[in-house]
């Protein structure tokens, strides 16, 4: 593979993905052919205009109706050149459209006027897409409203994002750092600020980022409410006082509970912690010991959040 360029050339931005070197080579191949033919045509035009311009004593007109060998030559040479360009462009295009099987997948949603991303881990982000370097990433994209288009100039990739269907795109980033994402299908008022960034990280940084608590800074009770929904506590523990499979959370904190096999316990932080991590330790009378453990599922902070949440339900 050709090494990718870290700085932008006269015409093209930096080469940030494995697609870029091939696209750029073809771009400059066409560029130099174009410059050659343009200079040739203009030089001949200027030369003819100077030499054959109308003036007293100028060269005499000589009518020439056609010249078949010449005409065949200037038809066939461009034909060969465009055939080469077609095949080269086709090859690069197919490479862009066939993602490696092991590609990391990210779902992308375009909507007026932001880009939303969801990793397969469930991690969501908007206006920023974090990916590891040198790793194939496949984007599965759809739109919530009108047509948008996902364009990363540094990666040389672009694909319309259409409502009612999926379109896909893949890349393998080669340059660390931030790369601009533009919307390139006109979508109304804020089309020009429907921007995002691809943040390319080392695999270690990416792992740290992935593992980092996305709910940092969220009030504990709010975090607990989110965990209550996300971890399906809701399916067994009501918050309105009705008994489902387990005791309701309503007014639970500070209550005194009768336990199966005798004894009572006052519901405090310690009891709630134990019941979430080791549910079978103390079973409230009238309920079956069916709750699974949440040890390893909830982080320490999320556990605190759930307890704080329960305290708020009175």
């Amino acid at each position, binding site marked *: 593979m050709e090494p990718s360029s870290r700085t932008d050339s*006269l*015409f*093209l931005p930096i080469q940030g993905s494995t697609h870029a070197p*091939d*696209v750029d080579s073809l*771009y400059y191949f*066409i560029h130099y*052919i*174009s410059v050659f*033919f*343009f200079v040739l*045509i203009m030089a001949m*035009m200027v030369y*003819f*205009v100077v030499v*054959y*311009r*109308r003036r007293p004593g100028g060269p*005499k*007109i*000589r*009518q*020439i*109706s*056609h010249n078949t060998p*010449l*005409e065949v030559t*200037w038809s066939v040479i*461009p*034909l060969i050149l*465009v055939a080469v*360009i*077609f095949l080269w462009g086709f090859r*690069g*295009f197919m*490479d862009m*459209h066939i993602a490696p099987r092991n590609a990391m997948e990210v779902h992308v949603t375009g909507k007026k006027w932001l880009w939303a991303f969801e990793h397969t881990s469930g991690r969501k982000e908007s206006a920023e897409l974090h990916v590891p370097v040198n790793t194939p990433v496949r984007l599965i994209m759809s739109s919530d*409203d*009108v*047509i948008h*288009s996902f*364009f990363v*100039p540094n990666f*040389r*990739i*672009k694909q*319309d994002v*259409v*409502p009612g269907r999926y*379109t896909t795109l893949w890349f393998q980033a080669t340059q660390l750092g931030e790369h*601009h994402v*533009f919307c*390139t*299908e*006109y979508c*109304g*008022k*804020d*089309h*020009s600020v429907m921007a995002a960034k691809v943040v390319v990280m080392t695999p270690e940084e990416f792992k740290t980022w992935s593992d980092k608590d996305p709910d940092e800074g969220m009030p504990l009770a709010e975090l607990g409410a989110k965990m209550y929904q996300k971890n399906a506590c809701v399916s067994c523990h009501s918050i309105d006082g009705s008994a489902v499979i387990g005791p309701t959370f309503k007014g639970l904190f500070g209550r005194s509970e009768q336990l199966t096999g005798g004894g009572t316990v006052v519901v405090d932080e310690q009891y709630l912690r134990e019941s979430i991590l080791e549910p079978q330790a103390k079973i409230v009378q009238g309920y079956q010991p069916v709750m699974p453990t949440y040890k390893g599922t909830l982080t320490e902070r999320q556990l605190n959040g759930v307890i704080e949440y329960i305290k708020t339900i009175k």
Partner: protein
Amino acid sequence: MNKGPTSSAAPGSAEPVVHGQGGLSYLNASHGIKSWIFTLDHKRIGVMYLVFVLFAFMMGGTFALLLRLELLTPGRDLVDADTYNKFFTLHGAIMVFLFIIPSIPAALGNFILPIQLGAADVAFPRLNLASLYIYAVGAIFALYAMISGGVDTGWTFYTPYSTSTSTAVVPMVMAAFILGFSSIFTGINFIATIHKLRPAGMTMFRMPLFLWALYATSIIQILATPVLAITLLLLGVERWLGVGIFDPAMGGDPILFQHFFWFYSHPAVYIMILPGMGIISELIAAFSHKTIFGYRAVALSSIALALLGFLVWGHHLFVSGQSEFASTVFSFLTFTVAIPSAIKVFNWLATLYRGSIMLATPMLYALAFLFLFTIGGLTGVFLGALSVNIHLTDTYFVVAHFHYVMMGGTVIAFVGGLHYWWPKMTGRMYPEPIAKVVCAIIFVGFNLTFFTQFIMGAKGMPRRYYSYLPEYQPWHVMSTVGSWIIGLGFLIMLVYLLWSLRRGPIAPANPWGALTLEWQTSSPPPLENFKHTPVVSGGPYDFPDET
């Protein structure tokens, strides 16, 4: 050195039927507003079309200047984002539907085609007048769309944006729908005229290349425009009646709209450029006193472009989500279109060889065309290549490419043709020195405006952006300054053309020493063009050798 302008020795000419100046011409044969509104004379209809399309050009140009001004800095300079979006939509829609499509065929073509052919008028004069009236009705709808809030969809009306925006889409779509019929009527008329009204001796291969180009254009107008009409009608049905054709929320397919739209609009690119190529053939032959090198190749390449132009619409959809197979086929076909265009450029170049080149203003425009159209064509090769297209499409690179073809090609050819035939149409010469200076001003301004757009486009600047990253600003500043230079050029041109109507030197019948039939009658021509029906005995560019 050359033969006299009206020499009977010129084998391509008709009998020398030049009228003296001061006789009755089409301009003074009758008077009063009714004599214009109800005229069936193709020349008067052509002149009225010319006035309309020049007015449309000024309006579309004003929007262009306004939006370039807004883009001078990344932030707000003049208007808000919604207004900017309307500006570029109106610039595009007016320039495409009201100016560039009718510019050469309906204005210059209407005037010149019957005379160049040796006919007294077009085959269907009433249909011709009807086409003008329909154009006027379409223009009224477009004006109504503008004053009732404008449109913000872009001239392409892509769904589902166009079915969900609250702006005046329906009046503008109606305008394009109606204007299409005006275009179809012109096409029908030209094909019938060329087939049925050629005088004795005027075989197809003795026709001037401008007529071949108009013939090819007419084929496209008749075959492609109805597809636009039905597409816009379906768009209206979706907006009015909520029938889901393109909107996925109602079970439609938005990409179907793009296929329908470009099935018309790509051939429409050839409606725009082919007549321009025809003018360039006339100019280069007339101002070199040379027969066109490879006349048949140039004539037939117009037909080839007209037909191949129908097979490449999918190259507008490489990133739309169409299948890879379709994109590959369309890329391949797109490259086949490059060949007839290349052939034309090489033939024009070869025509200059061993000619006697007179650098009057129309010829300067023809040379400017060769420069600009060559860049427009070569940058099309970048866009035809699939992998490179992915990076460049929907950026300023595309904007620059089609302006090099549409403005650097068609508009420059139109202006060249306007100067070339100005003496014939008005009976007055334009002022030559100032006209040459203006040609140079427009050439410089054009390249400053649009060459910079290739660079910022390749660097990733997306099109249709109200604000942009600061790193693109230097290119935007240059482009905006260039637009002022172009504007200045056209302003001076407007002044000297209006001046020449009354004060310009009286034009002789054949100021350029050209051989085609329009120069064998007086300037301006009499009511039915020729005193006697011409008899043609040779080709249109049979200039003699010098010994």
